[in-house]
């Protein structure tokens, strides 16, 4: 069966403090990179998954149940 690549990006929900993002912004600033007004930090996953009719449904399950903590994080995905 075909294998599909799934790209998932998980970021903090708006309103949840993004301390790593802020630290990175400071770091860029200290290195002299001006004009960076905001940084959001997140996680990226690239999955190779065997194709199935319910692939999209399964990807959502993986995200909600595991890859993202939906209490504080949101996710988006792309199946290629």
């Amino acid at each position: 069966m075909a294998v599909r690549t799934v790209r998932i990006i998980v970021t903090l929900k708006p309103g949840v403090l993004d301390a790593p993002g802020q630290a990175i912004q400071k770091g860029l600033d200290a290195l002299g990179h001006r004009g960076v007004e905001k940084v959001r930090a997140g996680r990226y996953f690239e999955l190779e998954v065997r194709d199935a009719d319910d692939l999209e449904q399964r990807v959502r399950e993986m995200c909600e149940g595991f890859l993202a903590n939906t209490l504080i994080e949101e996710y988006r995905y792309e199946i290629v």
Partner: protein
Amino acid sequence: MATLDPPAAVAERAASGLRPSEYAEIRRRLGREPTRAEIGMFGVMWSEHCAYKHSRAALRRLPTRGRGLLRGPGEHAGAVAVGDGWAAVFKMESHNHPSAVAPFHGAATGVGGIIRDILAMGARPIALLDSLRFGPPDDPRIARLVDGVVSGIAAYGNSIGVPTVGGELACAPCYRDNPLVNVACLGLVREERIATARASGPGNAVVYLGARTGRDGMHGAAFASAELGSDPQDRSAVQMGDPFTGKLLVEATLEALATGAVVALQDMGAAGLTCALAEMAARGGVGMDIDLRLVPRREAGMTPEEVLLSESQERMLLVVRAGREDDVLRIARRWGLAAAVIGRVTADPRLVVRDADRTVAALDPRALTEAPEYAPPAVPPAYLREARRADLGALPPVAPEEALLALLASPAIASKRWVFRQYDHMVQTNTVVPPGADAAVLRLKDAPPRGLALTVDGNGRYCYLDPYVGGMLAVLEAAQNLACVGARALAVTDCLNFASPERPDVYWTFQQAVDGIARACEALEVPVVGGNVSFYNEAGQGIYPTPVVAMLGHLDDVRRHAASGWTREGDLIVLLGAGGAALDGSEYLAELHGVVAGRLCEPDLLASARAVQSVREAVSRGLLASAHDCAEGGLAVAVAECCIAGGCGATVSLRAGSTAPPEAAGRGGPAERLFGEGIGRFVVSLRPDAVPPLLALARRLSIPAQVIGTTGGERLVVGVDGAAGRPWIDLPVASLRSAWEAGGLRGRAAAGGARDDAVG
């Protein structure tokens, strides 16, 4: 047997890093041209990092005998008896080059590597120490490097569950492009269960255990044996650590050893599988027949050479009794680790490496392990004459209070809390004295009330000015730090960081430093049980000669230890020891005047040993409320540190001396008396009624002792006996503390948060 692969091509020969004379020697030993795999194996095994070609002769100078020594150099780490049948295994190693190019992963894998050295002795790793050198931290690039290294050590040590209980950190411009990252590890094992790396028993299985082999970390040993350059070849040398797998490997290995099925073992560190195969076979005087196809791999399409030379982390090689392979494989499965029998021990001392039906190497393993030894020329560096002349009289005046605050904020002296707070220093619940003291103290859970103490020390600036004296001072300072917590020195391990040994002036400093370390260890009667040499540290200008010494000590009763802070009002402060105080090579000259110069005076080793003994005895007899040695920054910094540590002030009054104004830096002047450095001086505090027994003890050991003040109040006041007018120093303890804490955070804001670790 299948036929041997054809000889290596000329290009492969060239890529191996071997010299023409070495290649000729290999041909002589083999009686034929080496194959492509063999040339690769020789290339790594005869690299400086693995073979100690330039250092072996000098290292023989180090004393390796001593009370309680169970295993000296030769195995992965030395072992000393610590009582009740327990042995301590102790070793230090550098990870300088990898940390320069990938601070986080370089430092992390350094921790993993030294932990597996200890594990290879059959010991459970129980503590880590880190010794770090960087360029000046005010540069954001350096701040990031520091941050990456500290985070890497934290990430690996914390996750694998071995506490980092101490260390040191200093900065100087010479380390700007070539930081030093040295890590020491201590392990514990029952004496009768110390493991060996000596393969034996023809027919026994050679078992691979741990992470799968990938292409990462190719040529790491060769990398550590060359100068850091911009060569993109450097890039393939970075190894990635996985502390999670490292932890599983520790547990699985100890469990496997407990079954009694394991005859010998070794970690796959530098030079990977090649080194483990060759060294285990050579030590045992046996051979091995190995099939590389059986090696668990992470990637498809790896060549035999890649499998042989990969430095993938978290792997061990075990020799397992024939018929008991399953005992080990089962344990590996339970811990979720890859494991496989990849060959057998043979009686014939030949290492035969096959790749299915091809034989890629077939040679006597000793040909690989007995690398040529070089005695390079050694001449004193030209800079010495100039550098040893320090014209103190010409220095601009600095007020003592200003100098004290600046010194407290200098990276070497300032608070390291921001560092060790990131290290789990309590896991395993043995840490009695955490980082922040002269030495860390651990209890021995299984042999109460015994304890162990650990410290790591070295001063590159001293060694730059006089490597022989500098080497001695590193050892003495370590012994002093142990004495301050009440421990008796048991063993030393060292890490010798130098530039290229092929430069005669560098080599001279190396020999001198080794000699100095040896002399001091002999005087203290402490054996050097192992260590590591890191050459070719010369990105940029070349580093100071930087030997670093880690010392292990023993306490009969761990509850009888001391700390450096004064906590009680009304105690008397005594200065113990005969050491002089000079500004030559001092932190004061470097920090306040940007001068690295002076002539170090050679310490009186026997007097130093007696001073160390007096403090240790005083602590273990319970005479002292606190003990601290005078190190960087001299007496003034030492008393300030005691104030800060205990949150209590003091009034100190020195004997009247020269009449120079307090700002002057001349010989014998106030600056020298306050900030001059010199080994063999301790500041201790105690109840007035304990002073007579202390003085009696000092007299018995012919150690000068002098009451210099009283604890109490909220200020540190340092003046001269009978002098009128304002004292030299009169500052609130709170100001001392804030200078010291702020200094610890210098450059921190610039570090930011994006690191080269994978997630989050």
